């Protein structure tokens, strides 16, 4: 190929690489507008029942009541905490009664995180918070979300002989996400 051929070839390439993109750019017009989606941090934690009853078969010290399973609905979208997400406490001690609680199960309703027991078996509930559930670590995209039902089991033990009668106490269950 002589010099003239090389020159013409080069000129053609310049035209292709410079002119054509300009033509394409002219054929396309665009406008942009930002999109913003605001999702606030929220927790929805509520018991599935308003009360429960523990009954003793007798009044003697060392007797255990029946075991009652109580459900709690949890929905949260910013669960950064890994341990002690659910804690139980008694605002005031119940004379002659040792209250115990245990993690029963967690029914996950979305493909998010899950809850597992903080400790095995029943734990004594006192005026200091006792951890019931930890977050089960996963690598899912929705790892900071919880949406499902948590079930805790309660039972009572007579720490002394009990007098006959109905007694009521308030139990406090707290969910914390961070």
């Amino acid at each position, binding site marked *: 190929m002589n010099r003239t051929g090389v020159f013409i070839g080069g000129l053609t390439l310049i035209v292709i690489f410079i002119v054509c993109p300009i033509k394409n750019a002219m054929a*396309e017009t665009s406008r942009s507008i930002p999109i913003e989606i605001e999702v*606030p941090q929220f927790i929805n934690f509520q018991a599935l029942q308003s009360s429960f009853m523990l009954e003793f078969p007798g009044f003697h010290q060392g007797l255990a009541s029946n075991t009652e399973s109580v459900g709690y609905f949890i929905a949260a*979208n910013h669960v950064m905490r890994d341990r002690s997400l659910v804690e139980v406490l008694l605002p005031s001690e119940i004379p002659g009664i040792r209250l115990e609680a245990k993690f029963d199960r967690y029914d996950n309703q979305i493909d998010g995180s899950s809850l597992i027991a903080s400790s095995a078996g029943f734990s004594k509930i006192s005026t200091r918070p006792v951890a019931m559930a930890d977050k089960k670590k996963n690598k899912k995209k929705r790892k900071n979300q919880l949406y499902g039902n948590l079930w805790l089991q309660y039972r009572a033990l007579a720490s002394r002989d009990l007098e006959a009668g109905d007694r009521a106490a308030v139990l406090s269950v707290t969910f914390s996400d961070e």
Partner: protein
Amino acid sequence: MIYVQGLKRNDVKYFRRHPRLWRLFALISLIIVSMSAGNALAAVDTERLEMKYEIEPVRALQVQADSGTILRFGPLVPNADMTEQILSVSIATNELDAGYRIYQELPYVTSSQGNAFPKTEVLMWAEDGKEGGVSQIKSPVPAISKKKILIFVSSKKGGPDSFRIHYRVPNQSIYDAGRYLGNVRIILDAK
């Protein structure tokens, strides 16, 4: 033979016999002609020139959200009603007999923590144009996509048109807390 206007043949013969008078006459004639030319320069003149002009083809695209300069959703409270935002698109063009297409690009909507908003949780659909353009998404489709989505095709003759795009967040799921941002790009492309 040169004849000067106003001179008779006999007059010419007379001047030939008297060359000095001839030269004098020529000089006076020259002065008169020069003065006439001067007057001609000072007078109004009109020139007619052929003029060519070219009007560049123009395609102008305008987008406007009903909520202002941003498509804003939220705060999204769980189980609340879905929220909808409308984007008005208008095309001004002086190109007749040249159709065009409108595309949308929204590759991602992410929070500052790097969480991506679920792709299937932002839906979009478009109305037909007021001037004959046809929507290509008449029922809701996911708006977040790495590909350009064809949303509107002009009538065959092209020309100005306008239409509306509806964006929805169904809000039927739980989303990670955060402020998610993205950029909706509306593209006008020649057919």
